[in-house]
């Protein structure tokens, strides 16, 4: 470890880094290096994404025709259930925190590693074991209850692998808890000297808020899934209406986790967008503290709104009113973030490279996704649009238009730092546009289908919904192709990509300025001392320009 201290000059000489430290299988499978664990997560998360994507393609092919003629009803029900389960529990929840969070949170705050490196590796193994059990459940017949497992269908009437899938999801929940726990302790206890809370990048704030949700919400899902498994295996009657059990109680316990879970999926994406907007407009994020606190506000308010999934389920009308007003409040911090990102571009120096295209795509689609959420939080409208394709379109705009776009943007942005190779810019831009077009063609018609009254999870539908479904299926094939492109050229870049400098984007942040590309096993040659504010682009300006700190209106 006597490498020359990292001078600002780009160091092309091959240095000892976390990739070249050891090539053996053992060093990868037993690593405690948070960066290698991030790569392990990247591989497994991508695998599950394409498994879930395969189910999605089959769903859209089936729905291209009104009659259910591609697959049986039973198979279709299994397809949409497994699409939901795989995409949510095995891609959206673990992807950004597991890959980018694991890799960059320690570096961004100047730490050598996560607080509990071995727990971090355990988190990946628990994730893979949960994935294996769920994959076993899929192979040996699948599960057809919907990813929501509503009782009493899931507990009494379904005859598919509900218990086995429940165990799989139960195990995977602990992986999420371990990641969350690790990030919380790391952010609290392992910040470098000078790295105060308000000098931390917003990416770390977002992951801190996400980890709080993971730690507080996941256990309630665990106990709900455990009760469901006990009911399936031993018929203890906990949700059985004949004994006085209440299926709505299952929904309360389930959604207590599952709504905050959607914030687990979107908050890290917001963290990525904050980084990218700042880096590609070479400006500090507008209203930094507001964006930081809105992450925490979303985390807390996110736990008070789950009842908007149950307005029509027999939940009391007055509880519905309370959940509705709180659901409108939780929308405000998200709006604040979008306005602040847009304001950051004002008077910036915007570079439209691939990550920035994903950011612009995110801002548009997340805004539409967020606003359509207001339709569902509004009691009067939810009566009509609940459980229709309007809901399906809403959460796909947030999850696919938001979280997946941000994930791809983040992967492209940090690819040089993670692997020391640049991705091909031209192909990057093309695939971003293809994904944007394919996405909108797939999901915008579903808003219309939703208000027309086409219910969710329908294997066959009336003729008049046919044309919109054909459009949606056409879009899905474009989107499918769009996702294959980055997979291809990113793998290609690992071998043939241009060598990356230490700071190809000229961005601020410890991971760009202090850590070499790709970083050594302990991230820094010497523990960095932080003296600048976050996103201190102003410090690089010639003296006279940096003095004109304009405070708007």
């Amino acid at each position, binding site marked *: 470890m006597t490498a020359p201290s990292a001078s600002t000059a780009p160091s092309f000489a091959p240095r000892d880094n976390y990739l070249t430290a050891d090539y053996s299988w053992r060093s990868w499978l037993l690593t405690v290096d948070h960066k290698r664990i991030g790569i392990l997560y990247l591989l497994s998360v991508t695998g599950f994404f394409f498994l879930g994507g395969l189910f999605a393609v089959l769903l859209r092919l089936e729905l291209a025709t009104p009659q259910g003629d591609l697959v049986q009803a039973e198979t279709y029900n299994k397809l949409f259930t497994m699409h939901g389960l795989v995409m949510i529990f095995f891609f959206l929840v673990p992807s950004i925190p597991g890959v980018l969070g694991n890799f960059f949170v320690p570096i961004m705050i100047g730490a050598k590693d996560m607080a509990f490196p071995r727990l971090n590796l355990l988190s990946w193994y628990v994730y893979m074991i949960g994935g294996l059990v769920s994959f076993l459940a899929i192979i040996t017949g699948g599960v057809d209850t919907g990813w929501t497992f509503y009782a009493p269908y899931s507990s009494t009437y379904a005859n598919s692998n509900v218990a086995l899938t429940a165990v799989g999801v139960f195990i995977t929940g602990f992986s999420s808890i371990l990641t969350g726990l690790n990030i919380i302790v790391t952010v609290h206890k392992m910040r470098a000297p000078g790295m105060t809370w308000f000098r931390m990048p917003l990416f770390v704030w977002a992951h801190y808020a996400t980890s709080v949700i993971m730690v507080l919400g996941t256990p309630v899902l665990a106990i709900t899934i455990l009760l469901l498994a006990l009911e399936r295996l031993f018929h203890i009657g906990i949700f059985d209406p004949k004994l006085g059990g209440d299926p709505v109680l299952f929904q309360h316990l389930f959604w207590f986790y599952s709504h905050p879970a959607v914030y687990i999926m979107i908050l890290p994406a917001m963290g990525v967008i904050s980084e990218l907007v700042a880096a590609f407009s070479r400006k500090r994020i507008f209203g930094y503290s507001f964006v930081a606190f809105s992450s925490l506000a979303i985390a807390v308010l996110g736990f008070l709104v789950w009842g908007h999934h149950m307005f029509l389920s027999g939940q*009391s009308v007055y509880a519905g009113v309370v959940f509705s007003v709180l659901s409108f409040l939780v929308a405000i911090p998200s709006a604040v973030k979008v306005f602040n990102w847009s304001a950051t571009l004002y008077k910036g120096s915007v570079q439209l490279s691939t990550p920035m295209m994903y950011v612009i795509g995110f801002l548009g689609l997340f805004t539409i996704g967020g606003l359509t959420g207001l339709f569902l939080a509004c009691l009067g409208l939810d009566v009509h649009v609940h459980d229709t394709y309007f809901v399906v379109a809403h959460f796909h705009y947030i999850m696919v238009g938001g979280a997946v776009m941000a994930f791809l943007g983040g992967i492209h942005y940090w690819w040089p730092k993670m692997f020391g190779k640049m991705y091909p810019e031209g192909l990057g831009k093309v695939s971003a546009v293809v994904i944007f077009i394919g996405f909108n063609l797939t999901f915008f018609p579903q808003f219309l289908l939703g208000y027309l009254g086409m219910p969710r999870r329908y294997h066959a539908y009336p003729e008049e919904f046919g044309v919109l479904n054909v459009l949606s299926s056409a879009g899905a094939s474009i989107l499918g192709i769009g996702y294959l492109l980055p997979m291809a050229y990113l793998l290609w870049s690992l071998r043939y990509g241009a060598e990356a400098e230490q700071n190809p984007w000229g961005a601020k942040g410890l991971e760009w300025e202090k850590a070499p590309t790709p970083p050594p096993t302990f991230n820094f040659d010497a523990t960095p001392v932080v003296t600048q504010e976050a996103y201190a682009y102003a410090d690089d300006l010639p003296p006279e320009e940096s003095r004109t700190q304009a405070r708007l209106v």
Partner: protein
Amino acid sequence: MSATHDAAHSDHGGAGLKLYFAVFAALLVGTWLTVWVAGRDFGVWNTPIALAIACTKAALVLLYFMHVRWSSRVVWMAAAIGFVFLVILLAFTLSDYFTRDWLEIYSAPLKSR
């Protein structure tokens, strides 16, 4: 530097043992009180009293046995947040169950029309 910390931590060591005995005794008294209270009828106050006793016992265990009293502020917050979100889960779930029959969603009762 760490050695001094351990000493500081256990400087109440001498007092600690007496303190632990006191807390232990208090918990046993609390258990007896719980059983005694359950045997008598306080009408609508039964559950609140039982919960109050259980909470004080829990607080004793938390503060003294689990050293929260001498822990850093962030540990205080962690302990508090766990119970706050448990209360949120209970409160909002019960807000549904307790207000289910407020609204006469059936045709209004005959006598009041």
